């Protein structure tokens, strides 16, 4: 792989993700005002002191957007990493052990996937107390069902190959087979899946926050900012659209990179067409 082979769309995606991550890391340096400081009138138009205007309480929209990048990306990333760890370990264990364990995990996974993710999250969050780690955990567990399914399919494909057979015959343990034989050979499709899950996590977290069940105020996060400012829409105030656009842009950027990764995977495999 060389740098020149990366298409322009993937470059746009990478640049967008890099910008968002920079905002997240250096939020206190970049933001002109504090996250929770009321600095002006309510819903002031863009321009002047406030580059993007102010929100429903008179806080600077740009500053909250930059701090919001921090919360949104951190929570979405934590949920994705956790869901991947969970889904991968369980799916590889199911694929390697087979038999009863495989059946048990797979049937339970089917049951979890039979309930729509958002509905499941609503039911569970109605009971659980509102803490950040609980939110991350719920998102991760719900997402890990998808990871489990794809992980198991990929691992089963690889698990029947000769080199795995050879490792098994020379007496390696399950852990060795998982980490040294299967994982390196499934990395490329899994990387694409990771990106896809991350984009989904961003959207899911934003949706939950928008419904008032995600990150709780006054912490800034993009979905919650849409919720805060949605009443302004009727008066023609676009404050709610700015964080919405930020979510959309980040998700598009991630998807552009994923699209490229997937095409790369399928062209590595060779084959006719790009399906």
């Amino acid at each position: 792989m060389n740098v020149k082979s990366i298409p322009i769309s993937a470059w746009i995606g990478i640049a967008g993700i890099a910008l968002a991550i920079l905002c997240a890391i250096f939020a206190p340096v970049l933001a002109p005002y504090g996250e929770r400081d009321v600095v002006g009138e309510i819903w002031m138009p863009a321009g002047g002191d406030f580059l993007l205007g102010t929100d429903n309480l008179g806080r600077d929209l740009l500053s909250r957007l930059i701090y919001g990048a921090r919360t949104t990306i951190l929570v979405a990333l934590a949920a994705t990493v956790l869901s991947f760890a969970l889904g991968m370990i369980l799916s590889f264990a199911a694929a390697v052990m087979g038999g009863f364990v495989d059946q048990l995990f797979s049937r339970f996974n089917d049951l979890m996937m039979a309930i729509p993710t958002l509905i499941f999250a609503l039911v569970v969050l109605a009971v659980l107390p509102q803490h950040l780690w609980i939110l991350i955990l719920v998102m991760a567990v719900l997402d890990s069902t998808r990871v489990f399914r794809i992980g198991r399919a990929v691992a089963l494909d690889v698990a029947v190959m000769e080199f795995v057979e050879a490792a098994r015959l020379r007496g390696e343990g399950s852990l060795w087979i998982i980490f040294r034989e299967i994982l390196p050979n499934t990395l490329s499709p899994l990387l694409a899946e990771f990106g896809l899950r991350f984009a989904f996590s961003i959207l899911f977290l934003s949706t939950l926050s928008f419904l008032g069940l995600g990150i709780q105020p006054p912490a800034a996060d993009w979905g919650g900012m849409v919720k805060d400012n949605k009443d302004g829409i009727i008066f023609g105030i676009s404050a709610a659209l700015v964080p919405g656009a930020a979510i959309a842009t980040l998700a598009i950027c991630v998807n552009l990179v994923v699209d490229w990764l997937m095409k790369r995977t399928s062209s590595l495999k060779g084959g006719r067409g790009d399906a």
Partner: protein
Amino acid sequence: MESGPITGPVLTDAAAGETPLRPTDLSGVPAKPNPALAAGELDGTFWRRFVFRRPLTALILQRLGLSVGLLFAVSLMIFGGVEALPGDFATTYLGQSATPQAVENIRKDLGLDRPWSERYLTWLGGAVQGDFGTSWASKNSVSEQIGNRLGNSLFLAFFAALISVPLAVGLGMLAVQFRNRMPDKIINVISLAAISLPEFFIGYLLIMVFAVQLGVATFPATVYDSMTLTERLSAIALPVATLVLVVLAHMMRMTRAAILNVMSSAYVETAELKGLGTFRIIARHAAPNAVAPVINVIALNLAYLVVGVVVVEVVFVYPGMGQYMVDAVTVRDMPVVQACGLIFAAFYIFLNMAADILAILANPRLRHPR
């Protein structure tokens, strides 16, 4: 495909009725669609004979039974799983500062002092008969509320499906026709962007443009009983547009992938190589094989639509099931949450089942396990 003597009697129902059955001899022959079926819940010989005579009906009945079983498991999960989670309803309901006496009173009031298995059975018994109990917050009948709102939600989803399905299939075919050329690339980029847009962003964008700046649409999308059909339709124009945009990109991409998958198969290549025209290839070779995956795509997306309704209803303040559920979640009104959760899950499961069955009907190859 299996050889003649095995598939023969299975596929022709009329012939199977005339030929004398020898269940004992045939028990080991892989004539039945699924060996596991023989050990089904019904009486062995009867069920086996039924599977042998009407394999398709048996397969569909099996899927139906599976879905009902799944729904039962889901109900157990929605009720039992929620019970198993930490956190006491009464305490969360009253807040941290509630006195133990008040907590005790409200527990007794809501019937939480009884064991959960007993409550689950009462709840399930009621749910089967369409009675979901009374809301904790408003003390109204949950079923009554849901009865009004479910119709509204289905109304919304129905019109969204009516517009998005033909549009998605058409655009998907267009993309395949111009594969890797300009129209395909444009459709690809736009649909990729559309997938990444959150529902509420699309919704507010449409409100901003069409309701606020142009003034051609109404917001909020309130509907009430005395409205005429045209008034209702104009009220739901924006929510339907939002749902269509949300589901269209997904459906189109999946349609494109499904058709491309067929188009890149060996027999289409053969047809191409022996010099058949494009139209003939599509009509005679590709289309019959692409019907099953496309139907599957549509059914899956309709299932997705049912859930997508939740956010759109909140955005447009539309009096449907989704809004009811979200409101109940914020005040932790558990009977409402559980009832809505079960109904949404039921729609989701049965639409997925419909996708399964339609795929089997459209593609005879799926009737035989490999």
